[in-house]
């Protein structure tokens, strides 16, 4: 008998699929193309997931909550050399799942509602909702999966729905290109992920998360540790593709070709976050090297995207790059071991970024499909609701205090600082530095956007005529607030971007329920794998000590740590370090223990020295992080004000002055051009070459052989015709001619015959006599 929550979650999973099936087949036959159906079903979905959320999060308030159910999907029977082998499919619910479930279904529901207004009157209105349904289904599937195989399946399925929705306006070539680009880029990431899955499967003959963790913990991983690191990085490649991380980020901005609600749902809130969610799922098997790679990728992505976002004109592109940047933050957070912080940011970001996108959608809707910020402006009075909600979300994104974004981003940055310390500074400080710098840039370009869109005078008339593509009369319409169907979601999402939802303390998300319920899990990678990092750990600990001369207790503790590391051999080390870490944590926690869950939010007890040290260091750096981030955000906003409000600096002039930099940023670091020149052109060239090779060489050989055989055939045929036949004909000819000659002898006259006879006889007689003589 399944647990009731499992049954509920299965219903949650299948409802959107139902919506898809109904709408894809019957949307033409249904009134209003059946949008009410989709909205209703999604409402139910949200209701049920809210119920699950209530059950798991609010009622049972247990960090270690976990519920799993699975069934045999494929039965390979008794496999030689392996024994009975089944592939299981299943569902796993823990706190994170419950939260994600609620988040996804909520945003999906809101987007459905919003779309009824935004997409009304579209040619393929019903189909649109069907696609939303299948997307929601696959996204929920990712969230609920308990094994790598099913997560890969839903992974690809969200890829498909993203493909379908990006290319929803498929008559536009740009949309068609974008959808293809998105799918292929994701595929590149997916093959990495698939290889990672294969590495793990080939060792354990199972896909289940739990089994794999158990096996690795038990040290059943028989390949070299390099393979384990490789597995981690390859699995992370899936995230790189899906979450648009640094090498494969190019598809996400183009994905803005899709309808704006879709951008909000898929390319801001949920799907792109799925990569982060997946990395969180596999967090425990990541080796230190893998984590370092992840951290750097995240940092680079965050920084690069932020720099690009500064110079974009398209309102949606700016948001897209900010999304990439924020995803970079999350990945960075995971890389540095700030697990719960990263997921916290995932959650908060989902809400405010969805709000931003929907807001931008509202603006675009109101502006009659004008997306270029240069021709906007002065909308604050015309669209007050949008303005307010958009601003709140912007502040959250920029990371101003009193917003959810502030808490999560701060937590990540704190983790990054701690990580840098533990890892021994040097190059590792690049990560927090890039993080802070990106935070400043974020504040800057969001301020820029707010100003360009909402303040100043309307610049619609400035738009050059030749850019009036298609919508001949657009822009001259009176701009007015969007209908309630589109306003309501904005309000809800903006409300969810406020700190109070997550934590009572506007400065410390760690006091909130999220950080309490979603805690950094213990790594399962055996310590001896990390023994080379262990010295790091000790070294970091001492560094930490060096940096915090203040509190003597901590110092003592850290001394203790280092002594222990110096002294004993490995296992003692773990124990003592853990003890040390814990004690430190306790003491350090004491002053903060104000609220009811206070003493629990410091996370679990780590056996792993490194994690212990990082957790400790992260807590150390919480306050500095708040300080730094507040400063950089202030800097960013100030810069925006200086440039755009007070106009001390003329952006055009500046752009001219630093033209190469400007162009580099404006052209997105030329990644598209690079890929087009290398990968795409290259593979097309190879394909042309191979096709030529196939047609001319391989087939040429075949035909050559054929021709050779044919030549030989004709030759032998000629021999047959002229020589063999010739002989026959010659014989016939000879007989004929000689016969004709002989015929002349046959006169038919008696006397001729007689003469012959006589001549013959006489001749014989004469001969005889000559003989005798």
């Amino acid at each position, binding site marked *: 008998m399944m647990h009731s929550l499992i049954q509920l979650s299965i219903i949650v999973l299948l409802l959107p699929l139902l919506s898809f099936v109904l709408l894809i087949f019957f949307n033409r036959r249904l009134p209003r193309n059946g949008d009410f159906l989709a909205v209703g079903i999604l409402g139910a979905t949200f209701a049920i997931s809210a119920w699950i959320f209530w059950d798991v999060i609010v009622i049972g308030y247990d960090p270690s909550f976990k519920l799993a159910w699975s069934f045999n999907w494929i039965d390979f029977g008794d496999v030689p050399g392996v024994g009975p082998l089944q592939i299981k499919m299943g569902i796993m619910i823990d706190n994170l799942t419950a939260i994600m479930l609620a988040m996804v279904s909520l945003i999906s529901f809101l987007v459905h509602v919003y779309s009824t207004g935004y997409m009304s009157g579209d040619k393929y209105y019903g189909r649109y909702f069907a696609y939303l349904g299948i997307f929601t289904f696959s996204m929920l599937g990712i969230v609920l999966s308990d094994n790598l195989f099913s997560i890969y399946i839903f992974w690809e399925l969200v890829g498909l729905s993203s493909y379908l929705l990006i290319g929803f306006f498929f008559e536009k070539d740009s949309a068609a290109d974008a959808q293809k680009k998105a799918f292929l880029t994701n595929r590149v990431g997916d093959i990495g992920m698939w290889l990672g899955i294969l590495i793990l499967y080939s060792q354990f003959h199972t896909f289940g998360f739990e089994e794999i963790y158990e096996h690795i913990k038990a040290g059943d991983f028989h390949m070299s540790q390099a393979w384990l690191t490789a597995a981690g990085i390859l699995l992370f490649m899936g995230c790189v593709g899906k979450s648009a991380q640094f090498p494969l980020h190019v598809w996400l901005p183009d994905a803005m070709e899709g309808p704006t609600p879709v951008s909000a749902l898929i390319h801001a809130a949920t799907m792109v976050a799925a990569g982060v969610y997946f990395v969180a799922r596999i967090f425990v098997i990541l080796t230190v090297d893998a984590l370092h790679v992840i951290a750097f990728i995240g940092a680079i992505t965050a920084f690069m995207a932020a720099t690009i976002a500064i110079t974009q004109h398209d309102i949606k592109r700016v948001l897209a790059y900010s999304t990439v940047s924020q995803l970079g933050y999350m990945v960075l957070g995971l890389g540095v071991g700030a697990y719960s912080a990263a997921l916290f940011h995932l959650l908060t970001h989902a809400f405010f970024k969805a709000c931003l996108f929907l807001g931008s959608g509202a603006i675009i809707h109101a502006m009659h499909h004008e997306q270029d910020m240069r021709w906007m402006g002065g909308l604050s009075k015309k669209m007050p609701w949008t303005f307010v909600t958009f601003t709140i979300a912007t502040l959250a994104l920029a990371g101003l205090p009193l917003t959810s974004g502030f808490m999560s981003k701060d937590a990540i940055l704190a983790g990054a600082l701690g990580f840098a310390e533990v890892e021994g500074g040097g190059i590792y400080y690049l990560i927090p530095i890039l993080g802070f710098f990106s935070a400043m840039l974020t504040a800057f370009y969001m301020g820029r956007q707010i100003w360009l869109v909402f303040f100043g005078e309307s610049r619609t008339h400035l738009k050059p005529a030749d850019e009036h593509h298609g919508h001949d009369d657009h822009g001259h319409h009176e701009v007015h607030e969007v209908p309630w169907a589109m306003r309501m979601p904005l309000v809800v999402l903006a409300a969810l971007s406020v700190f109070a939802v997550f934590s009572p303390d506007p400065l410390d998300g760690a006091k909130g329920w999220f950080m309490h319920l979603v805690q950094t899990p213990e790594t399962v990678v055996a310590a001896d794998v990390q023994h080379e990092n262990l010295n790091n750990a000790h070294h970091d600990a001492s560094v930490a000590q060096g940096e915090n001369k203040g509190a003597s207790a901590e110092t003592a503790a850290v001394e203790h740590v280092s002594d222990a590391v110096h002294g004993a051999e490995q296992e003692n080390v773990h124990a003592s370090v853990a003890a040390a870490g814990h004690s430190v944590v306790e003491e350090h926690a004491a002053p903060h223990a104000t609220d009811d869950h206070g003493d629990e939010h410091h996370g679990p007890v780590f056996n792993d020295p490194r994690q212990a040290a990082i957790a400790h260091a992260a807590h150390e750096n919480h306050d500095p992080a708040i300080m730094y981030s507040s400063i950089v955000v202030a800097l960013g906003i100030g810069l925006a004000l200086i440039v755009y409000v007070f106009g001390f600096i003329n952006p055009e002039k500046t752009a001219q002055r630093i033209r190469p930099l400007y162009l580099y940023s404006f052209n997105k670091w030329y990644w598209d051009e690079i890929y087009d020149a290398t990968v795409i052109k290259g593979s097309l060239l190879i394909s042309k070459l191979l096709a030529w090779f196939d047609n001319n060489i391989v087939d040429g050989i075949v035909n050559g052989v054929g021709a050779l055989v044919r030549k030989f055939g004709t030759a032998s045929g000629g021999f047959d015709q002229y020589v063999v036949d010739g002989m026959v004909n010659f014989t016939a000819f000879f007989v004929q001619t000689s016969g004709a000659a002989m*015929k002349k002898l*046959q*006169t*038919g*006259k*008696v*006397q001729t015959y*007689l*003469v012959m006879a*006589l001549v013959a006889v006489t001749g014989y007689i004469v001969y005889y006599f000559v003989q005798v003589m």
Partner: protein
Amino acid sequence: MDFFNTIGLNHYLVISAILFGLGLFAIVTRKNAIVVLMGVELVLNAANINLLAFSKYNGGMEGVMFGLFVIVLAAAEAAIALAIVINMYKTFNTVDVSSIDSMKE
């Protein structure tokens, strides 16, 4: 000179040889069927001369008797041959042996 004075066997043989040759010549060369028959008669006579000559010079009667028979046969032969010639003439309206080549092809 003795050869010419005393008539011996060889003289008869030479005559028969000449007759035989002439008859043969007639048979081969002449077109007229009748003349061909005459040649046949000549050959027969030549043979007869031989028979009788040998019969005389070794004193047996066989040659004589055969000569007699040969003559009888010659008579029969002549009768038949003439009848054939006449039929031939009726059929082909000629006695030209060479013009009768219906055996040809």
